């Protein structure tokens, strides 16, 4: 029977049998089986870009490895998610990224680099992704030397969330960059400052200006940071906000990717319109009674 007529497909993942709905990706099926597969360019609230190739797994009878994030389970497929072959591939992807980008602000990648024993020291003078940091406004900065070209920001700006299309991949090969048309500064571009690109960036290449300033000033103190959940006060949609604060001052606002209202995406007001709760214009906490 053709796979398209099945109501359920059954696959084997690391020896365990899993039955899933047709169209379920290997990554999703693995999660059901309790198997974790590392990802970088994948996000639950975006269409898989399948660009980083960190999630590659072995599927028996496939000549090459297959990307777990985007490959749908095929009836009877036998899948292995950990092997010597897979480990070498993941290690190489991590070495490639580590020799190309500044990954110091990507703790998840640092952990994977250790786990897969990626060794960047064996490369002599590797070309790097170099770009001057772009500070064009008070809301967020773009530091593309940290950009791994995962497509997340482009997709969030485009047809996965915002439909603004202010940025695109531009150029080709190693010179590919995320860019507006003719590198037009963001304030003059189509950008609407929803900050959804910042929200999905996995390497801090895009970061809030407030966070950037704290780091630049040497005042970045993770041990002084907390996250508080609240509801956006601007309109009636009711987006859940996560206020990331350091010493009671907001440095970043996000929304949970699995939230039913936002799917992790916000608008400019929820994302950046929080200055009124901060000093020096702290909002009123008691009624103003005129004498």
């Amino acid at each position: 029977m053709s796979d398209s007529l099945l109501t359920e497909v059954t696959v084997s993942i690391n020896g365990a049998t899993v039955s899933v709905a047709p169209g379920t990706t290997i990554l999703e099926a693995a999660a059901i089986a309790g198997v974790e597969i590392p990802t970088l360019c994948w996000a639950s609230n975006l269409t898989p870009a399948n660009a980083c190739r960190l999630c590659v797994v072995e599927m028996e009878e496939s000549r090459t490895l297959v990307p777990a994030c985007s490959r749908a389970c095929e009836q009877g497929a036998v899948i292995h998610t950990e092997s010597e072959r897979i480990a070498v591939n993941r290690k190489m992807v991590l070495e490639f990224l580590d020799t190309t980008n500044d990954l110091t602000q990507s703790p998840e990648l640092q952990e994977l680099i250790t786990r897969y024993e990626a060794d960047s020291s064996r490369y002599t003078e590797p070309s790097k992704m170099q770009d001057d940091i772009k500070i064009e406004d008070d809301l967020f900065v773009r530091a593309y030397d940290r950009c791994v070209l995962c497509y997340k920001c482009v997709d969030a700006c485009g047809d996965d969330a915002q439909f603004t299309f202010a940025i695109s991949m531009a150029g080709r090969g190693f010179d590919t960059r995320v860019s507006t048309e003719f590198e037009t500064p963001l304030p003059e571009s189509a950008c609407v400052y929803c900050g959804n690109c910042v929200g999905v960036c996995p390497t801090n290449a895009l970061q809030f200006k407030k966070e950037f300033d704290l780091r630049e000033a040497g005042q970045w103190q993770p041990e002084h940071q907390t996250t508080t959940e609240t509801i956006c006060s601007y309109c009636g949609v009711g987006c859940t906000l996560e206020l990331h604060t350091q010493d009671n001052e907001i440095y970043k606002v996000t929304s949970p990717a699995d939230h039913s209202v936002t799917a992790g995406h916000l608008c400019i007001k929820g994302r950046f319109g929080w200055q009124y709760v901060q000093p020096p214009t702290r909002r009123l906490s008691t009624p103003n009674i005129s004498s």
Partner: protein
Amino acid sequence: MSDLKYTNSDPDSHERDAIDAFVIDPPVRHEGERWVVSGLDRTHDSRHLLLPGLHLLQNLKGWISPGGLNYLAETLQIPAAEAYGVASFYDLFQLEEPEEGPLHHVCVDPVCAMGGSASYIQELRSNGDRVHESPCLGQCERPPGIFVQIKGDSNQDLTATTNIEPQFNSSSSNRLLRRFGTNEPVNLNSYKEHGGYQALGTAIELGGARVIEMLVESGLTGRGGAAFPTGIKWQSVADHLSAPKYVVANADESEPGTFKDRMILENDPFALIEAMTIAGLSTGCEKGWIYIRGEYATAAQRLSEAIAEAYSAQLLGNRIQGTSLTFDLEIRQGAGAYICGEETSLFNSIEGFRGEPRSKPPYPTDKGLFGRPTIVNNPETFLNVIEILNNGVDYYQSAGTPASPGTKLFCLSGDIARPGLYEAGFGIRLRELLSDAGGVDGDLQAILLGGAAGCFVGPEQLDLPLTFEDTKANDLTLGSGAVMVFSTKVNVPDVLGRLAEFFRNESCGQCVPCRIGTVRQHEVLLQIGADKANKDQLSLLHDIDTVMTDASICGLGQTAASAVRSAITLGLLGETRS
């Protein structure tokens, strides 16, 4: 107006007029209505006009200005950033105002480097001409390959500028090349006098089902490199009943050392048109697209003239040859990107997106061009269809071997007495092929079989029969039929460095293994240079090879280490890995 926002850069009057004249049917724009056409609807009617529109702007002013790009993008309702992303993907589009004068693209890939490209470039530069050091231009039989972009005028390749006779083996046993040199390429009557359009009549008489059956029986496989059975491909598309469906000819020939498709298009354009018409009528596709690489100026010119002639003779369009069948044909020119020869990149390129490959599955026969079932074949494959219909399956199989029936076009270049296009039955030995071409010029060091994505073979392998099964059994590939001959005068590490640089420049940049792996491979080869490679360098090359081959999205990355690997095995680069 749409809610797409554009910057304030305005076009000049020439750009505005040219685009207004080109986009005769712009997408409707309603006041106040939300029109987001780019992302939501990838099959939007007019986005495919982006690539030809960019060619128009480039040709008009010698570069694509911010105002011109804005106006084209707004007319087609494409976000400006996406249009810029597409324009900046291609080598033939300049996005900064250049100096005056034509831009000379001169091939610097191995065969043309041996054929004197460096001194030619020096000569041009000393004359004050603008030069771009180009990847292979598909003119390897007459190096160095040249292509000139001229503002406001037709671009020119070597065929246009020199009048050199086509170089091929003229033989009475030729099948695919049977009309070469005897017909007038863009004269329909001449084509008919040489047996043209008989196959179409036969196909109409037999019906699509029988045509496909004959292809399956013949054992014809794709000649673009992957050798997929053509009949099965056509059957899969015929099985999809809903329209629209498409036939695509992949003439984006860019594999270094390969020039057969250019010679087919320059010398026998009607054969491709006829074969594509047969494909359309046999499988229920009413529209065909020919994607031809941007540097093939003469081929594109002749092809478009031939298409116009076919239309006026009712061999294209509605009611073909008095039947109720329809088949339309459109040309798209690439703009300098090797990756667009990958079939799914080619679809994206036609559709007006960046030429980045898609994940497979789904395969083109299910979701190809514009997301519809699509036949995509190489011109050489299409020409074989005509042979099979005109002469039958038995005749077709009388050449070649049981597992590789028929004939194959080989592109011989490099240190060989008579470089050119050679047709031979599958199974011919390398030694015979070299001797047909007058023998090696000097002492043979190695042959690069299948182009940059192919493998080196040494003098001890000259008895290799050139078939799919024999090359596969020896971990080799016929690829596109490129046979690049290197004598002992050639410095192989230099050749390897250039091949690695080729992949580095041509990677689309989408996936990490290829985007960065091609760069790291090139860097290691440069560090090795003429020295013996040390163990660490060989081990690093091996690991880079592994991840590119195993984890890249498409064939470009998966074969980018192939030539280097084979050179190491043959001991052409330092000590071999034990």
